[in-house]
């Protein structure tokens, strides 16, 4: 029994080390074999070797170098055994010729010369614009976050085969394009970085839009996105929008515990118990925002959204909210990232800052937008403006219309309660 428990503990310790190294290992192997499937398999095989050896030998000083060496050997073995396709053959055979007879120490020494940006290269590959948008997040979570296909499927409320299929297709696309898993430089980086940031924010929102308690995988997506943001900020410290995005997710995450009640019902920002906001995350978010702004990124879409989130974070009571500043920030956001949803939020902010009639006028102006036709927050905002104007009968109709448009049962209940309060 005791021996079993010790063995179990040893296995968990090895797996914990492997989880730390897994993404960088896959990044290195992908550069070597230019094939994500093969890289993942080689990494998995290396884990099996580590599980067999480390409990007795101890964890090596440089586990990543050790695992890379084992995986590289595995790749060479496979090469000899299977006679892989000519392209892969060429890539590895060149290295094989020169390295086969070198000692492990020499190979480990060579590993130390790695650029150290393999993780970043892997993130850029998973978020590459050639990969279909719905597959980028899944692939990133799989390769960088180390989530299983099942975990990703539950997080995205999709079936496991659907997610598996997405990942398979994405890997094929990347292999067919012959990506080198390098970090793009110069002008190419900006376009690629935009896609990376979008994926991180999408992962965050998948977690954030979930209601608490039902499935813990979803809130943990927020943590994955925050970690990705921190990694990006560490590797790309000069990119203001990276800090802007990090600021945005840290500040939004600070409200996770406050935005649902004990029954899991969503609590709107203005009603939240601000004492439950995570001040540590707010502090980190504000620091990241300051870095984004110091780098000249004040007008970046993520920095502006972070600045908006910061306005709420700084207000200790809802009455202290600086709506005029928020309205001004939405004006600027509308200029750099125009969208019907931003326009609606801008209208709401102007209504809060300058009175419900101003808000209502702006809401009516954008109401014909086709993108907002079935968008519950639009009639909900109209209802709120009408209610504040004392036009209760019209407000009630608007809240009921909003309730009929939302598919979220908790939100529906909230809107129906507001309609009932108009009586």
């Amino acid at each position, binding site marked *: 029994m005791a021996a079993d428990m010790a063995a179990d503990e040893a296995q*968990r*310790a090895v*797996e*914990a*080390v492997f*989880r*730390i190294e897994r993404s960088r290992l896959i990044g290195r192997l992908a550069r070597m074999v230019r094939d994500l499937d093969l890289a993942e398999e080689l990494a998995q095989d290396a884990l099996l070797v580590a599980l067999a050896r480390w409990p007795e030998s101890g*964890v090596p000083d440089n*586990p990543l170098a050790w695992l890379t060496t084992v995986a590289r050997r595995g790749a060479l073995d496979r090469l000899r055994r299977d006679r892989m396709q000519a392209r892969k053959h060429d890539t590895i055979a060149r290295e094989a010729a020169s390295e086969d007879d070198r000692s492990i120490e020499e190979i480990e020494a060579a590993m130390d010369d790695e650029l*150290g940006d393999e*993780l970043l290269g892997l993130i850029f590959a998973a978020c590459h614009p050639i990969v279909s948008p719905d597959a980028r997040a899944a692939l990133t979570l799989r390769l960088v976050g180390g989530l299983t296909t099942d975990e990703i499927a539950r997080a995205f409320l999709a079936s496991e085969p659907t997610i598996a299929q997405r990942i398979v297709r994405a890997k094929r696309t990347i292999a067919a394009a012959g990506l080198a898993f390098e970090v793009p430089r110069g002008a190419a980086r900006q376009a690629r970085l935009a896609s990376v940031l979008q994926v991180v924010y999408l992962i965050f929102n998948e977690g954030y839009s979930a209601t608490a308690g039902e499935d813990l995988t979803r809130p943990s997506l927020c*943590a994955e996105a*925050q*970690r*990705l*943001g*921190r*990694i990006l900020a*560490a*590797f790309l410290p000069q990119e203001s929008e990276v800090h802007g995005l990090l600021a945005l997710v840290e500040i939004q995450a600070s409200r996770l*515990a406050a935005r649902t009640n004990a029954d899991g019902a969503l609590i709107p920002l203005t009603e939240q*118990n*601000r*004492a*439950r*906001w*995570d*001040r*540590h995350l*707010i*502090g*980190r978010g*504000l620091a990241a925002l300051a870095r984004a702004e110091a780098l000249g990124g004040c007008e970046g879409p993520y920095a502006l959204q972070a600045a908006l989130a910061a306005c709420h*974070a*700084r207000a*200790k009571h809802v009455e202290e909210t600086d709506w005029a500043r928020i309205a001004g920030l939405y004006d600027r956001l509308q200029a750099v990232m125009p969208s019907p949803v931003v326009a609606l939020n801008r209208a709401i902010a102007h209504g809060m800052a300058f009175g419900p009639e101003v808000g209502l006028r702006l809401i009516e102006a954008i109401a014909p937008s086709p993108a907002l036709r079935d968008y519950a927050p639009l009639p909900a905002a109209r209802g709120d403006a009408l209610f504040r104007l004392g036009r209760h009968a019209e407000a009630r109709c608007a809240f009921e219309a909003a309730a009929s448009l939302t598919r979220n049962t908790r939100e529906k209940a909230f809107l129906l309660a507001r309609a009932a309060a108009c009586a």
Partner: protein
Amino acid sequence: MRVVVFVKATEDSEAGMMPSSDLLEAMGRYNEELVNAGIMVGGDGLKPSSQAKRIAFDGPSRTVIDGPFAETRELVAGYWLWEVRDMDEAIAWAKRCPNPMPGPSELEIRPVYELADFGEAVTEEGAAIHGRVADRLAGA
């Protein structure tokens, strides 16, 4: 989850012995790894307890006690604040820390309480006070 990792004091750290340049360099590389992995969100080294004060409470009385303090093994010489997925991950990262002291030494990993953990004991007023305090700490 958020954890604080304490570097426990030793006789050397209490004597104010500064780390060697080798150790400083190794620790710098280790910290860089932690940051690159998105794990480390804060940390500092602490001066010896000879520069510390304690405030002892007993009912209404408060007594200031000057350092140094005797129970070296219970003292702290530094700390990190980490965001990790679970305790296993924290342990794996802690194990690869270079020995922070010239002799035998210890790290201690402590999960951080969040306000939610206090449950019913927190009234809205109590929580609001905690929030205000934390605000000032965060510079919000």
